[in-house]
């Protein structure tokens, strides 16, 4: 999935997101992937799930730090690829909120998503059917 500039998004199924002073920790409770999101990335993620217009958010973030414009594409591809956000076909566009604009102006760090897959490696294999019987779970069968 690629994020569309005119699309609306919500948190993915089984995705849990906790905000700690503007920094998000995201956990996918189904796959075991978990993520650390930089302050600027957290601001964008927060805006996406609040239904703010993606293009408007890019302009606002880039006004605060022009390099952000180049970082957003890779970040958006990552959060879409890990299904942290998914399309919300029922949502309508919301105007940028004052608190979000303030956070965007203060977000000067690089837009980064750090991915942790140490647990996902253990739990995403179907332990009944994808497992090498001799070695046991979590050793996957050779394809």
């Amino acid at each position, binding site marked *: 999935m690629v994020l569309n500039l005119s699309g609306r998004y919500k948190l993915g199924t089984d995705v849990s997101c906790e905000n700690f002073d503007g920094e*998000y920790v995201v956990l996918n*409770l189904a796959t075991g992937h978990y993520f650390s999101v930089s302050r600027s990335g957290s601001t964008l993620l927060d805006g996406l799930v609040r239904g703010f217009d993606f293009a408007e958010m890019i302009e606002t973030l880039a006004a605060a730090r022009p390099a952000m414009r180049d970082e957003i594409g890779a970040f958006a591809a990552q959060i879409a690829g890990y299904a942290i956000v998914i399309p919300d076909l029922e949502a309508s566009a919301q105007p940028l909120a004052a608190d979000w604009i303030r956070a965007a102006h203060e977000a000067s760090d690089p837009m980064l998503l750090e991915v942790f897959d140490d647990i996902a490696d253990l739990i995403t294999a179907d332990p*009944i059917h994808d497992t090498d019987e001799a070695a046991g779970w979590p050793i996957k069968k050779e394809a």
Partner: protein
Amino acid sequence: MTLAAPAPTIDDGITLRNLLPFAASAIEQAEKVMRRIAPAARLSLHGVDVSLYSQDPGYVALASERLWQNGNETGRREACRILVTSTGVDGLMTPPQWGPEEFHSRRFEKALEGSPFRAEFDHDRKSWHIFDLSRNIGLLWMQSAQAFAPWEPGSPLRVFLHWFYSARGMRLTHAGTLGRNGKGALLIGRGGSGKSGTVVDGMMHGLQSVGDDYVLLEPTDGFPTARPVFRTLKQNADGLRRLGLLETIGVGRKENWQGKYEFFSEDLGVRMTPSLSIRALLVPHVAGTQHTGVTSISQAKAMLALAPSGLFQMPGERDSGVARFAALVRSLPCFGLALGSQSGDASRVIGDFLDALP
């Protein structure tokens, strides 16, 4: 008109469609067995008296020895009955297997949500943990006696206790603990970050602890309270050597499934304390420096150290776990603990750190 497919029977294997009736019937069977036989042990744990039914004296000895019991605890207590059994014992058949449906732990968890039942299927050993929260009845149903998971001896009945305490707003938490004068800190982080060695070193240098691996966290007015659940401490040979314990602890014991020696605080000449008031979170890492240091870290970093292993090492209760761990992180100051190499230095630094906490 469409016809619904008939529900699969247990003979076809367990699927998400027959999981609930299977859990109910298994608990019913367990209850019938427990009406016939006497409990092999009564275990006095925090807030609950567990009657353990089992014809396997090895498991009974394990649970009696390794669970931390406090017979002096007062206040409201519940009763819980747990049957540990296996094929052919107590009249039970071989535990049924998972069926042809793809196994997905999250869907499994969701299928039980809202019901009184919690369950886990151990795919390697083809055994079941099943618990009825409404009646506090548990069943560990194995292929054969002692065919439990290799981590079971270090933390017997852990899965049942996780479900029991989660339903009451408490949480078994993957953390070590150290304290002084009743004030404590949780040591959180991945395996290999130095939690356990720091706890053992601290206990050897006069600090208190309620455990080095899994502890019970109870939200209380003011600061959360941590309590011991298991008596076992763990260290690998290198860790014991660093602590000067290899010649005592490492002799006459076998390494466990992780290559670690399991022992008790009494082997160090000290006892675990019944509770600690938790005032801070410490995220240790081996720094490669001589001296140990403490620095403030973000709550996000602490959450990353605390939540993942605590959520995914236990079956189910993931949503409530995220909420509880996030609330814990927000309620406490968070620090990084850069562990130096000088023996006893970490314990001195942590002791001073604890004294300075409110």
